[in-house]
């Protein structure tokens, strides 16, 4: 049996007086890397929040294989194999880095020893060995982001949703991250959804891109197709013109 696909269908999310998502659909298969791009406020983070149960849907549905997961609590969705990182980093600040990562493995049923071993291995993979004993709060911004990724991986997820993982990293760090992330689907068979504003990173990393603007999908396809799409050029130029 093949692994199930994570699917969002016609998702609508409303905040008071604002339609943050207006009928967005997206599919993520195991082993694939999908990039979600779009101007600020276009609804990218909200889509991840909708998938992981942090915000309520006003319409549409989220399914994992033939199981509907929209309406479940974040914790139950997590236990079905969805892990995420946060745009505004959310580490456990008063705990050590290794405990931060250990927590994820524990939540998914590992024993304390096994969880610790998993955590140390992942910290090593992400080049964080030297930080293992530091408190979450004391890390640099780039390290915090890497710990969040290690923590998400410790849950051994089927799908990993990363919200701007490269934000605040320098070029060398971003390059290292690119290689780590690119290897994940083959290594672990997971499906990866990434939001980032770094177009260079996204073009090289993602198998497919989907572009949001004002809560709607305006383009989807390969990096080249998306780059040339008139609506995308319009959205980005438009937003830049609006910012100027």
């Amino acid at each position, binding site marked *: 049996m093949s692994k199930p696909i994570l699917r969002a269908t016609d998702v609508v999310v409303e905040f008071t007086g604002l339609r943050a998502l207006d009928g967005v659909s997206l599919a993520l298969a195991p082993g694939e890397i999908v990039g979600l791009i779009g101007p600020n406020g276009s609804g990218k983070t909200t889509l991840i929040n909708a998938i992981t149960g942090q915000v309520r849907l006003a319409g549409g549905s989220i399914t994992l294989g033939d199981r509907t997961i929209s309406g479940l609590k974040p914790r*139950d969705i997590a236990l079905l194999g969805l892990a995420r990182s946060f745009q505004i980093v*959310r580490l456990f600040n008063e705990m050590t880095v290794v405990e931060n990562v250990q*927590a994820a493995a524990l939540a998914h049923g590992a024993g304390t020893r096994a969880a610790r071993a998993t955590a140390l291995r992942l910290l090593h993979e992400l080049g964080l060995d030297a930080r293992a004993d530091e408190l979450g709060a004391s890390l640099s911004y780039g390290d915090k982001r890497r710990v969040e990724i290690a923590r998400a991986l410790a849950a051994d997820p089927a799908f990993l949703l990363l919200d701007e993982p490269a934000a605040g990293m320098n070029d060398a760090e971003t390059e290292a991250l690119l290689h780590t992330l690119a290897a994940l689907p083959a290594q672990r068979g997971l499906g990866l959804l990434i939001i980032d504003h770094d177009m260079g990173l996204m073009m090289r990393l993602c198998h497919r891109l989907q572009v949001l603007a004002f809560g709607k999908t305006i383009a989807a396809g390969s990096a080249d197709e998306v780059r040339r799409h008139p609506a995308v050029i319009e959205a980005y130029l438009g937003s830049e013109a609006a910012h100027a």
Partner: protein
Amino acid sequence: MNRHLLTAVLLSGLVVLLVVATEALGVRVFDRIATNLCVSLVLVIGLQIFMGNSGILSFAHIGFMGVGAYVSALLTIPAQMKGMALPDLYPILQGIQVSPYLAIALAGVAAAVVAAVMSYPLMRLSDAAAVITSFALLVVLHTVMTNWSNVTNGPRTLFGVPKATDLLLAAGVAVAAIVGAVAFKESRTGLLLRASRDDEVAAAALGAHIPHLRWRAFIVAAFFAGVGGALWGHFVTSFSPNAFYLHQTFVILGMLVIGGANTVTGAVVGAFLVTGAFESLRSVEARLNDLKLFNDQVVGLTEIVLALAMIAVLILRPGGLFPSREIGAVLARAFANKKKGAA
């Protein structure tokens, strides 16, 4: 040595030192102070188990101390004395009399059961709502203790509790509490609960069942509160419901906040410091009153100083003296750094 083990050994060592020093001095007053300190340790460490790991301030703790004290009293007051001590006692309970040691353990279990039943619905709440409901819980427990005359003698003092707690017993239980709290903190429940303390959203996104984790900690905390209450009851031998209310809550909270709620080390250090300060101030108070410098008696110095100390700590060092790392980890890191420096 494993740093958690080191923490447990060092903190227990402090208790052992207290016992040895007290026995060596052989002064009765010190014996009383040291025993009270050990009982406080059990209570503060119990509170740390819930508050430190969940990050939720609980006012209910001392209510469970009361539950423990009354349960143990009921189980141990000799049958012939019960008629006098508790004139309205239910006939079924009149004949019951077990050993104080068994009673102290059962008192812990009873407090834990009461906590389990009362608190589950509250464990979904966070922040101010959680704090206020814990206060409501304290008021409920206090009201029951003052009004259920059949088993508590109402607001009046309950006499005739057999003396069973000495320094050695109290110190032994304090050491057990230290070991229990360190083990709980490092357990799966403890670690995930600390994660939820630091970030509820992120912990839930990992799959942590936060209300359940909190509930477990609350039950374990109530167990130690119950045991602490029973120990205290068998030390002072007579008490009324007011012993388990705001004053005691304030003292125990003060110890924990000053030491640092997030660590067992903080709980232990806070209990030692506050007890030391209290006893010194009390003797100052007595001296001042002996000297008759003032027309009226000097009273309440201890409470005011504790309040000021709490305010000072919260302003200068909000996490307390040991805000995030246990003593074992502090020493292990210092040692590792020194080795690195030498190499």
